[in-house]
């Protein structure tokens, strides 16, 4: 089978780069010029939602408030996602570099890296790297400081407004939107919040120029992306791949020969069954993803998979709104009842309606996205839900 599209790339991990030189030359440029280069690259946020990074920076730069912040979201907690850990472990300076460029554009003096509690073991080394970074920043005469804030084990804090609440000392409960962080974020001040991978790519775009990045990928999904691959695969791990491949190409490369489904985008993402491998593109024109790819072979029960996801959501729901707090529980109880035969198979349709309601009425991405995995698994593996 043709595999001509599945291209491994290396834009971020092994590329040497001189932090000082890149920051120096970028700091000499006009802010508009920097934003235009980023816009030209086509970089979209790598957390999954896919908002153009340049616009986020631009909107924040336009706010009159003298206090603004850049926050790096290093609270990845989506089951199947572990790329940020690798990035922070291997190339932290490039993450800080991305934050520093953003700081210039929006005129921020302070930046924060919110690190998930599960990654506390990274802290001593990160602090060391941060010292080195601050030295470089000082040498080129820039007034910018980054502080690391530790999370305490709550998946919902990856949601940006919940993350701000947590930074401010509260329960990590998502806020109402709008206002968006570009207007009111940390301490209710205009804030750019980007995830780790987005910041690395932002930085590397100023190492290579936008063109090199833009040459990769497709019209809707520019560039390359870091994927974290787990499940039934002989090659689990972290890979940087060009965007635009089909699930089939992916499975050819990473499957174990018996792949029956691929969960793209983690528990909140979509399950692609074998019959749709060929026609499904991994990217914004097909199934968007924050980078998590989980493979399942035919020895797996998709009922167990779905139940595990629902247990995850039930536990991680912040509990603030009813559709999500009660919905997650009811979906789980519902599929259990069908499996045990206490409910007729037609009950699954009612559960799908409930999932649909959650998609519309839940306050934040957690409750809204439960429907993604629920629908795609129930639709495609109905028999496994019943028998």
């Amino acid at each position: 089978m043709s595999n001509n599209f599945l291209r491994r790339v290396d834009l971020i991990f092994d590329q040497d780069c001189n932090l000082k030189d890149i920051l120096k030359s970028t700091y000499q440029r006009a802010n508009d010029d920097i934003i235009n280069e980023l816009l030209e690259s086509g970089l979209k946020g790598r957390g999954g939602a896919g908002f153009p990074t340049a616009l986020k920076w631009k909107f924040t730069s336009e706010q009159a408030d003298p206090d603004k912040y850049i926050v790096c979201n290093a609270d990845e907690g989506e089951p199947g996602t572990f790329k940020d850990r690798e990035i922070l472990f291997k190339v932290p300076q490039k993450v800080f570099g991305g934050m520093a460029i953003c700081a210039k554009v929006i005129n921020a003096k302070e930046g924060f890296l919110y690190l998930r509690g599960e990654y506390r073991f990274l802290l001593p080394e990160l602090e060391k790297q941060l010292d080195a970074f601050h030295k470089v920043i000082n040498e080129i005469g820039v007034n910018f400081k980054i502080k690391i804030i530790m999370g305490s084990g709550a998946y919902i804090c990856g949601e940006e407004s919940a993350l701000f609440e947590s930074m401010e000392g509260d329960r990590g409960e998502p806020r109402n939107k709008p206002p968006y962080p570009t207007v009111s974020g940390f301490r209710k001040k205009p804030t750019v919040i980007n995830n780790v991978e987005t910041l690395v790519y932002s930085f590397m775009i100023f190492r290579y120029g936008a063109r090199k990045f833009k040459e990769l990928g497709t019209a809707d999904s520019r560039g390359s992306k870091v994927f974290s691959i787990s499940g039934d695969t002989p090659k689990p791990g972290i890979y940087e791949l060009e965007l635009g491949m089909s699930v089939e190409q992916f499975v050819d490369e990473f499957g174990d020969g018996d792949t029956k489904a691929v969960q793209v985008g983690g528990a909140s993402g979509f399950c692609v069954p074998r019959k749709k491998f060929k026609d499904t593109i991994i990217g914004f024109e097909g199934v968007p993803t924050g980078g998590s790819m989980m493979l399942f072979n035919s020895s797996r029960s998709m009922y167990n998979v779905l139940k595990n996801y629902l247990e995850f959501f039930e536990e991680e729901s912040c509990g603030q709104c009813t559709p999500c707090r009660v919905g997650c529980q009811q979906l789980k109880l519902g599929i259990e009842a069908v499996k045990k035969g206490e409910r007729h198979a037609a009950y699954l349709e009612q559960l799908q309606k409930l999932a649909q309601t959650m998609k519309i009425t839940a306050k934040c991405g957690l409750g809204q996205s439960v429907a993604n995995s629920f629908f795609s698994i129930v639709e495609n593996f109905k028999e496994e839900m019943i028998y």
Partner: protein
Amino acid sequence: MTETKELVKKLADKHGRVRESLIPILQGVVQEERYISSEAMTEIARELDISAAKVYGTATFYSFLDTQPRGKYVIRVCRTISCAMKGKNLIIQELEDILKIKIGETTQNRKFSLLETNCLGWCHKGPAMLVNDEAYTELTPEKVREIINEYMIK
């Protein structure tokens, strides 16, 4: 002053007496005392001049901010999908056997607590667990036994 009182004061001096310091202070208490007692919560509330209910609300929200007494070493085994597929049940069984406690419990000598947790970010190397901040991956029952034996003599 009791030890807890002193600790809270020390942490408040270090992090500052503002709302934003609440979580770092709570984290500091857990690090020293393994959990946040109600005495600690009232003390924090006093130091930061916020209500004890607020402190309680925040403390109970986060899974790493234990509000029940825990052992010196808190073992958190990942229960999420990738680790479940790679046999986390066997790992838990082994741990329960060695420590003679069930999930959620703490050993009599207060040395170990055993908990389940959600994805730790090591899905490609499951099953995975944390012992305090240390991550252990690609676990097998034998490997678990070795690891715990080392902690037993620590």
